[in-house]
Structure formats: C-alpha cells, structure tokens
C-alpha cells in the first residue's frame, strides 16, 4: 500500500469515527500544522491554533471530499484559526515576527541583509504578504496557496510577481 492510498484509507476510517485513524492523522500532520501556526502566531498561540485545527478536523472531516490534498485542506483550516485567534488577540495575522529566525551577531552582512528583507516584507500589502508567506515560507504550490487563501490560481501568480517587484523597489531604496 503506497503512502497516498494509506492516507486515504486513514481518512476514510476517521470519517467513520475510528479513533485510531484519527490519532494517526493528528500525529502525522501535527508538526506541519504546528509550524504553520507557530510561524504566524508564535509558539504558545500557535499551539492553541494547531489544537483547534485538529478539533475542527475531527468535527468536519466527514465534509472533506478529497478534491484537494488533505494537508492543504488542514492548512486552510489552520489559516482560518490563525486569523481568528490573531483577531481575538488584536494581532496582525500576517505579522512576520515569528516567521523568521531572530538576527544573530555572528553573521554581520548576512544579518543586515536579512533584516532589510524582513523589513521590506513587512512593507508589502497584506494580500502580497499572504501569498509570499504561504508560497515562500510554507512552501505551498500555487494551487495550494489558491485553496488556502481562497483566491484563483492566476491571482496567486500575479500577486507573487507583483510582491517580488515591490520587494525589489523597496530594497533598492534602502541605502547599502
């Protein structure tokens, strides 16, 4: 049994209320979902968001029709929970504070580059920042970003291009 059919089988069992299959799905996808949430909200809030994501998964897995990758569907749920939690805590749901490593003194020029890039990313519009985060940070394909963000694939492509153009303009204005 290959990995894909094994996953489908687990989903099928979880839909029928099999607790073991549900536990397996949680164990399997938790790290990915947790990292996704923690990069958005920080470790503590990210943990809450990840838990809520799996609770929602448990409740709504019967509605999952298999039209997209299961993990993308889960990240879509996590994306919504992150947005709701951020709104509740009066935070920017697309803040970059927790997405990148904290600058260290060891790498001078590299660190300065990183800081400039991070600052430039923060200046992007929320729509552009969202697609950059989902594609560049989370490594989702255009189709997956489209599903998670709820926009057409063409829009994702266009937004990414314009986001990078804006980044180039912002970074060119920064004195070397």
């Amino acid at each position, binding site marked *: 049994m290959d990995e894909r059919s094994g996953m489908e089988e687990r989903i099928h069992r979880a839909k029928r209320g099999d607790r073991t299959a549900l536990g397996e799905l949680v164990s399997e996808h*938790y790290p990915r979902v947790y990292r996704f949430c923690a990069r958005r909200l920080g*470790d503590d809030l990210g*943990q809450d968001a990840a838990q809520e994501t799996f609770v929602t998964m448990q409740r709504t897995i019967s509605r999952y029709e298999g039209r997209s990758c299961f993990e993308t569907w889960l990240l879509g749920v996590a994306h919504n929970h992150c947005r709701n939690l951020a709104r509740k805590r009066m935070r920017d749901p697309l803040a970059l504070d927790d997405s990148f490593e904290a600058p260290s003194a060891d790498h001078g020029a590299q660190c300065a580059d990183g800081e400039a890039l991070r600052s430039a990313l923060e200046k992007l519009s929320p729509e552009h920042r969202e697609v950059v985060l989902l594609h560049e940070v989370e490594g989702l394909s255009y189709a997956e970003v489209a599903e998670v963000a709820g926009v057409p694939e063409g829009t994702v492509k266009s937004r990414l291009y314009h986001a990078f153009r804006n980044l180039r303009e912002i970074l060119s204005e920064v004195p070397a």
Partner: protein
Amino acid sequence: MNEREDIKAYIDGELSPERANEVRLAIESDPGLMQEYTFMKDTSSKIASLLRQPQVKGAEKALQATRPRIGLRVMQTVVALCASVLILAVVFPVFYKAKVNGRGGGARTNVATSFGVEKAKERMGGDYNGESNAMSDTNMPADFSPQSEMPAVRERGGGRDAQGLSLSMGAPVAEDAEALVRQVIKDGSYAFEVANVQNAVDDTIVMVKGYKGFVESNSNSGAEEAKPRAFMTLRVPEEHFEDAVAKLKSLGKLRSENSDNQDVTAQVADIEARIKTLKTEEESYRELLRHANKIGDILDIKERISVVRQQIESYDAQRLTMKRLAVLSTITVQFEEEAKATDEPKPDDWFEDTKLSAILMLKGIGKFFAQAGTFLFVLSPVWLPALLFALWFRRRALAPQS
C-alpha cells in the same frame, strides 16, 4: 504574452514546458529580465534561509483534545435534561393554568366579588330596614328578611335614619366614602340536562327556600311531553349565589352556563348623594315654611317641598331597586330531561363514527401542535438562553485546552 510577469512562475516551476522555454529564452536575451530573474531567485533563497523552524510541541495535547473526553457526552446529556426539565417546569404549569382558566371563566368574577359579599354582611344591615317592606313579591316567603341573615350588621345600622339611608345628612365626605359598600348585581343563566325534570324542580325549590330565597317564576312543560322542560327564575341572597349554583350543578349535567356581575356601586353612591342634597333642600324649605306668614309664600314653599319630595322618592326607589337586585341575585334555570336511550345504532353508522373520531383526533393533534408552538414561541426567553448555554458549553468543552 508578457514574459516579465511569468519570471516568478518560471523560477517556481509553475509553467508548462513550452511556456517555461519561452520565458527562459526571453530572460537569456534580455539583460533587464535577467536582472529581475536573478533578484527573484536570490530573494526566494534568502527568504528560505531566514525561515524559522519552530520546535514542535503540544502534539500530545492535540491528540488529547481530539479524543472524546470522559463525561463530555454525560455532561451534554445532563445539560440537555436540565434544559428539558426547566422547559417542562415552566411550560406545563402555564399551559395547565391557561386551560383551567379557559374552562372556568365565570368562577373568576365570583371570587372577585366575594370581597363585596363579606363587606356587605358587615355594613348593609341598616339599608335593609326600609327595604323589607318594598320586597312584596307574592312568591317571597314570609320569613324572608335580609336583616335576619346579618344580625351583627343590624346593630351597626340601628342608629340610621328612618329612610334606611346609609349616609346620614351632614356627615363628612370621607366618612361617606368609607360607608360605601360594593354593590354587585349577580345574574346567572344555566341549562341542565336532568334525569327527571319534576324532581329537579322540586329539589330547586327546596334549595332556594333553604337559602332564604324564593322562586320568582316557574314554568313547566309537563311530564307528558316527549322531552319535558322547566324554566325557573330564582332569587337567592347574593352571598348564597355560588352555593346555589353549585347545588344546581349537582342536579344534572350542565349544558350551558352564563353569568354576569354588574358593579353598581358608583350608581348607588350617585343616587345617595342626590338624595342627600335634596333632603338638605327639603329641610331648608321646611325651615322657611315654619317662619312664613303669608299664604302665598306658604303655598309656594309647600309646592316646592312637594317637588323635592317627589324627586327624593324617585331616587330612593331607584336606590332600593338596585340594592335589592344586589342583595338578591337572579338565577335563571332551564331543566331538560335527558334523551332516553333509543334504538341501537344502525349497523352502517360505524363508518361515520370512525370518520368523525378521526377528524376529531386530527383537530386535537393540530390544536396540540399549534398550542405547543405558541408556548414555545412565547416562552422562548426561557428556553432559548438554556439552549444557547448548552451549545456554548458544548463548544467550550470541545475547545482545546492550552
């Protein structure tokens, strides 16, 4: 097509092979595009290198959160049960009370006026002094005397004037108001189905006499009729009205009931005030008459006294009638003999009976749902918060613990 916009998609490998080839050629031939390509590629790799890899934690909690917690379902059931009990505890007493009130509409007015009955016992004794003579109905028993029913009151009324007025002349207004007693004229019409009309009539006459009342009229269609009937008009002391009705109800099956209570306190008070004013006027004329010397003046004053006296008598008669009506309630009774068992039902009646039963049952079910819907709607402020609380509690119980 603009190759520039596809550079990013080309880097990410999101283009078809043909399109990717076109974009690659365009980049190689155009230094500007090459610069943009280089920037985008470098920036993408820089972002990837800066990426934080949070250490995974809380997986066990997520697993626990997705496991159904012990007692959650029990708690949900308990909350649901509590909500149901609360709804039942609120809905059914109201429902029952509404039904009872619907059945016994007439009883309420009787209770409301019972206060007047008690008060009348205390205060009206004096008013009967002049009234017993006026009640010269031929059917009235010789021993009927409202005073005899209220000995305590008679003592209090002893000091009143010869006209039986409860308001003495010149008394303060506040005292007058206090002396007012609620005057309620009670009327009731009842129709009964009895086993034997003549027996019911006899029992009624005995009962009325027992209450010191009398039968005002009695007409009987006769026992030879196919369905004998009797119509009676009874007069019973107001305080025995309810008892008399209760006894009548025990005589047979009640077919219809109609009772009416008319409060004439204000009218009586108005008439009494008029009488009082006229009496004062009469007294002053009499005083003038005593000092008058001329024949013309004497005749003139006597004429005026006569007019005032007529008015006093007229008002007094009205007052007495009202009080008499209030003191003696009127009960109109109709007795009808129960239909005797006739032939056995025809064999083909079963279908009609079944149909009627089914229609009645359908009506009953419809009525039940309509009533239940109305109650649920009206009582939504009670059960809706309970339901919302249960839902909130369920949501809270399902939420992960951080």
